[in-house]
């Protein structure tokens, strides 16, 4: 046996997956409450104890971890024009697995500085100007940031002409300051890979220590990446395949959690019909969006607000009853539905969360009437031909009707401008292994791919 220990230190739960690389089997999975306040290792050991130990004890050949504990990787991004470099910076941060607290555009004002001070991000991503374009903003914002009263790790990914100069200014106050390639080297060209790598590097070298995760590293080999980055990495592998082992093709992953609903799409998203023009900033092949107002527990009230009366209508409940139930979920985030009624409430909530989250993730098509007839403009990704939708996340996996929830991801003929998948097949990450497989990809991509194909179940 070649046992590999894969750990996800989540914000609420520490999830452990043990796999045998030789037979490509899952030996066991378990979870226990995350113990960030005391010692990360306590929660990990509690979870480990739930998996029956072989007689001669565990002999792990590798021990890898990812983490979203201690608030995850909190980032603030800043760019010049809101729809251009600021948006590109936001996408780069999301793709690196960060929780984006706020995005700033144009010159940072005194109140913006105060806000950044109050938000205390783990990493700040500074962009602005295309290569050879606007130079002032990067330099000015670097100067404003150098006035902050404390040091934050900064990744500079703006106009290359002044990036080094901006980094010099930032180094007067901040450490480390890493220079990456511009997130928007040319107008409307998105290039987030270099910035993503730089963010991960800073995460590995600095953030893990700052969050007390290094205690875990005494036992684990390394905390390799933020959990969402591991999920995105697994998704990419599953979509593209490895060597001769085919992947599933373009896919969408919906992660319905207690605090947020995350959507990952691995797809080009080019227009699927002729005569459609693409407009706006191109989107990355591996796109991740996080909906902070669409969680099933911690942010249940925000979800209630976002979906409005639809929840009550869907269930046939009074709005007051809906509100009481939502409040109950916020007060008891660990609550598992106790009655059939509560269970159907959970399903309806999940369904609407998925509907909205996927709606915000996918592209839309717009008809423009010109003197020469109708023209079609597409913004964002066309996911209508997408063959695969995968569901994951604590609340979804515990629900008795995951298909009822995931159906929210499907194209709705009543809203034909939203380019959601039309006839996808659904899979469930029943054993909750996606993050673990993203970690396993680092040492054995082929095994990770085969195991995902084996353990994700079609529903």
């Amino acid at each position: 046996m070649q046992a590999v220990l894969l750990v996800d230190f989540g914000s609420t739960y520490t999830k452990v997956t043990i796999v045998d690389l030789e037979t490509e089997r899952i030996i066991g999975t378990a979870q226990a409450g995350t113990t960030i306040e005391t010692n990360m290792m306590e929660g990990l050991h509690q979870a480990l104890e739930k998996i029956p130990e072989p007689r001669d004890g565990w002999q792990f050949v590798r021990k890898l971890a990812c983490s979203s504990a201690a608030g995850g990787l909190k980032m603030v991004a800043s760019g010049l024009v809101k729809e251009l470099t600021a948006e590109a910076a936001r996408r780069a941060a999301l793709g690196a697995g960060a929780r984006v607290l706020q995005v700033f555009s144009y010159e940072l004002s005194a109140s913006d500085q105060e806000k950044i001070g109050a938000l205390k991000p783990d990493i700040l991503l500074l962009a602005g100007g295309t290569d050879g374009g606007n130079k002032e903003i990067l330099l000015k914002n670097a100067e404003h940031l150098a006035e902050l009263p404390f040091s934050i790790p900064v990744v500079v990914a703006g106009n290359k002409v002044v990036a080094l100069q901006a980094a010099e200014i930032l180094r007067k106050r901040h450490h480390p300051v890493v220079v990456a390639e511009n997130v928007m080297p040319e107008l409307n060209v998105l290039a987030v890979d270099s910035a993503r790598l730089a963010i991960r590097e800073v995460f590995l070298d600095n953030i893990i220590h700052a969050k007390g995760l290094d205690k875990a590293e005494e036992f684990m080999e390394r905390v390799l990446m933020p959990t969402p980055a591991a999920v995105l990495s697994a998704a990419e592998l599953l979509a593209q395949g490895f060597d001769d082992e085919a992947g599933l093709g373009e896919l969408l992953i919906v992660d319905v959690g207690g605090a947020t609903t995350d959507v990952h799409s691995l797809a080009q998203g080019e227009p699927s019909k002729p005569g459609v023009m693409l407009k706006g900033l191109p989107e990355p092949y591996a796109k991740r969006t996080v909906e902070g107002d669409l969680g099933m527990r911690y942010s249940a009230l925000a979800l209630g607000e976002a979906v409005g009366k639809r929840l009550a209508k869907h269930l046939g409940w009074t709005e007051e009853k809906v509100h009481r139930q939502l409040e109950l979920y916020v007060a008891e985030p660990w609550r598992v539905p106790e009655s059939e009624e509560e269970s159907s409430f959970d399903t309806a909530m999940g369904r609407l969360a998925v509907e909205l989250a996927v709606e915000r993730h996918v592209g839309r098509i717009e008809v423009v009437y010109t003197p020469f007839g109708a023209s079609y403009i597409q913004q964002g990704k066309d996911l209508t031909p997408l063959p695969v939708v995968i569901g994951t996340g604590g609340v979804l996996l515990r629900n008795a009707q995951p298909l009822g929830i995931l159906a929210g991801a499907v194209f709705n003929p009543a809203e034909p401008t939203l380019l959601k998948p039309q006839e996808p097949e659904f899979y469930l990450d029943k054993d909750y292994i996606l993050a673990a497989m993203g970690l396993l990809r680092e040492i054995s991509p082929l095994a990770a791919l085969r195991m995902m194909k084996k353990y994700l179940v079609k529903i």
Partner: protein
Amino acid sequence: MEQKTLILGVIGADVHAVGNRILDYAFTQAGFKVINIGVLASQEEFIQAAIETNADVILVSSLYGHGEIDCRGLREKCQESGIGNILLYVGGNLVVGKQDFAPVERLFKGMGFDRIYPPGTMPDVPIANLRQDLGLV
């Protein structure tokens, strides 16, 4: 000498793409850095592109006769966005039907455009004007 940057696009609900490609080619050949935002471009897209790329001039094309409505307020929005002094050129079939060009030119001058070109203008005319206006000659 530093390459000058220009924003090129077809404004409004206008989908004429061929002339746009030709202009892109001609200005690039003439040594300019062309940022082509293509057809169906809004005023905001022109301005955002100019800010981000630190452009020296915005070149607006309009071929479908609605140029006056589409271009109105562009100079004011530039001023509001902090690029009030940027050069604005416009050309094409700016108004409906065959009209005398002098009043059309006056109209667009009044809207804050620096150079206005009638239908059938060859690219070398604005190229020569650009060199002059940008102090390249």
